[in-house]
């Protein structure tokens, strides 16, 4: 598989904290970012999305240099831990923003939103505000926006972490199945080795100031020899 995302000689500096990355992510793959808390997992994702300024290095998407592109013009969707949905807009509007930031949508787009809602088990809820939905339903709606946006790279910064363990697993599986259908490349932060084992083909280990090149999940999570053995041994 060709490389989709390439991080070339990246260096991020925030005060005394630094993070270096020189790696590539394959097209259509599911990659987990793992490592100790405070190691820079979210920072790495933020750098790819264009939120974290780079000290040096470049970001490529299929060979195009996107280092200078503002977040909204990068070929990616990102879901954060919270505040993915705007509470003052309806679910349908929230999803529609994935396609048009001005919400200039025609009839075909609105019916596309209905289709997505149906597919995610949210049929008929388009006119509701996020606060009228359960936590799981809100996560589905956020996922609906990613589907609507149809951008080829999807970054998940633990958007389902606040859900209970069962629901979290269910949401992750739903995300993987609906996104891989469209051939999207997926990079996600996770703390949970089981999540990684279940859905990710590769793991990027972020620790001690460095984001390592992706390793096959089994190898990365090997408790005896893998790079995360110290981290995984913790209770």
């Amino acid at each position, binding site marked *: 598989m060709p490389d989709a995302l390439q991080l070339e000689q990246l260096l991020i500096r925030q005060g005394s904290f630094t993070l270096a990355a020189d790696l590539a992510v394959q097209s259509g793959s599911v990659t987990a970012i793992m490592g100790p808390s405070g190691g820079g997992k979210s920072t790495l994702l933020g750098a790819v*999305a*264009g939120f974290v*300024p780079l000290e040096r290095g470049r970001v490529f998407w299929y060979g195009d240099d996107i280092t*200078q592109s*503002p977040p*909204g013009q990068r070929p990616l969707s*990102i879901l954060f831990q919270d505040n993915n949905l705007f509470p003052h*807009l309806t679910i349908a509007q929230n999803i529609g*923003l994935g396609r048009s930031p001005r919400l200039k949508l025609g009839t075909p787009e609105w019916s596309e939103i209905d289709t997505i809602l149906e597919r995610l088990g949210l049929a008929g809820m388009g006119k509701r505000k996020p606060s009228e939905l359960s936590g799981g339903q809100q996560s589905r709606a956020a996922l609906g926006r990613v589907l609507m946006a149809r951008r080829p790279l999807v970054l998940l910064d633990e958007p389902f972490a606040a859900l209970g363990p069962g629901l979290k697993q269910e949401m992750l599986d739903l995300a993987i199945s609906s996104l891989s259908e469209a051939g999207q490349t997926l990079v996600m932060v996770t703390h949970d080795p089981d999540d990684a084992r279940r859905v990710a083909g590769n793991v990027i280990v972020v620790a001690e100031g460095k984001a390592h090149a992706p390793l096959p999940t089994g190898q990365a999570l090997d408790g005896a020899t893998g790079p995360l053995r110290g981290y995984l041994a913790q209770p």
Partner: protein
Amino acid sequence: MASSPNAVTPSVPRWPGAIAAGLVLCLTLGTLAAVSFRAEWSGGLSASDWAAVRFTVLQAAASAALSIIAAIPVARALARRRFRGRGVLITLMGAPFILPVIVAIIGLLAVFGRGGLLNSALSALGLPLVSIYGFQGVVLAHVFFNLPLAVRLILHGWLAIPAEQFRVAASLNMPVGRYLEWPMLRAVVPGVALAIFLICLTSFAVALTLGGGPKATTVELAIYQALRFEFDMATAARLAMIQFVICATAAGLAWLVTLPQDAGAGFDRVVQRWDGAGLALVWDVLALAGAMVLLLLPLGMVVQRGIAGLTLIPEDIWSAALRSLAVAVVSALLCSSLALALALRRGGVLAGISAVLPLAASGLMMGTGLFIMVWPFVDPAKLALPVTAMVNAAMALPFAYRALAPALEQIEAGFGRTADSLGMTGAARLRWLILPRMRRPLGFATGLAAAMSMGDLGVIALFARSDQETLPLAMFQLMGAYQMEAAAGVALILLTLSVGLFWLFDRGGRADA
């Protein structure tokens, strides 16, 4: 070189903020330039100039000191007692901001004036009468307006003392006053005093109605008299510059002390305490009762006399009411647009300065400057209403900005990244993120600006002829003609419209879309 894409492209265009800052700078520094160009300094300050400066500073200092002294026991009582109506009382203490000054003065006259309640009682007892005019009247009115503000700000300080400290003090039998309350007061009071001092330096309407004469003329009143009665632009300009220097000095001092902020929330906490029995209870009851009488009696008199006076109001008052409403609405919309545009510059230095500069530039100084600027080209009276709307907008700007800027920061902190990642920039960000989430503070700021403009008796008095009267000006003229009953009737209308306008905008911001 560091590449920081998100810092390079602002999410909202910066030109509206630049225009707003330009307009405010024109209104403040531009008018300052105009008055400095026209001012005549031959012979320095005249004796009457000095008298005006002295009176201005003295009355402001006395007003600030008395407001604070009276506020401390009231704030303490509110901090340590829980009783029915406590919340209502605290809310009511926020009301003077939207209460037209001249309406309050009608109420104060009804209580403390020549034929008022106090003097009727005194004469019935055969005691000498007191006069509400001059120094004591100006200070009384200022205390009426600023005592509530002082109470709210000092109460904030009291409620910020952690409950654990009172518990520790009680267990050690430490005197709470000396170890907990006195240090808090020492930290909070200077800022509160300066804020009130600054407000009293520029309160024109109080001096206009209760001051006057060589012994009780403020600089602003002197400006008005020079321009209005003597048509002496050189003197007016000189006085306007003096006023600017006084206010800028006070504002500069205030900058150093960092003014306290009325957070407007969190008052419902009552800390459990172990002192305050016995004599302290009597003291608290007296403080609260005294404050309530001082604040509520004049307002009650406005309503009572106003209802009686409604039948006596002149026919043309309704066109004055329409003019007032138009000026207030235009001014409020202008004010909140300016505040929003400046807030969208998010921490820009020029925007920040523009947002506080009107505190240093008094309304009368801006008015004098504009008068001098338009005078060669057009009859200033023709521009009375637009100029009033503009100056009022500038005067309310610091308060509106203070309501909007933190709200915007909160929105950006919560939803900025999601909006960025979706490419919501410019108008889209404003329409789908910022405006809907700012409705509450926007409604509040607009309502505040509308009420402040509605009740303003400042620039309008400088510019208007009788055919452009607003309600406060019409009231002032009725009072000057000793038609106090009719004036009270107009006061009731003005009060209703001011409060109504504030309520309408504030409510509009709260209603769910």
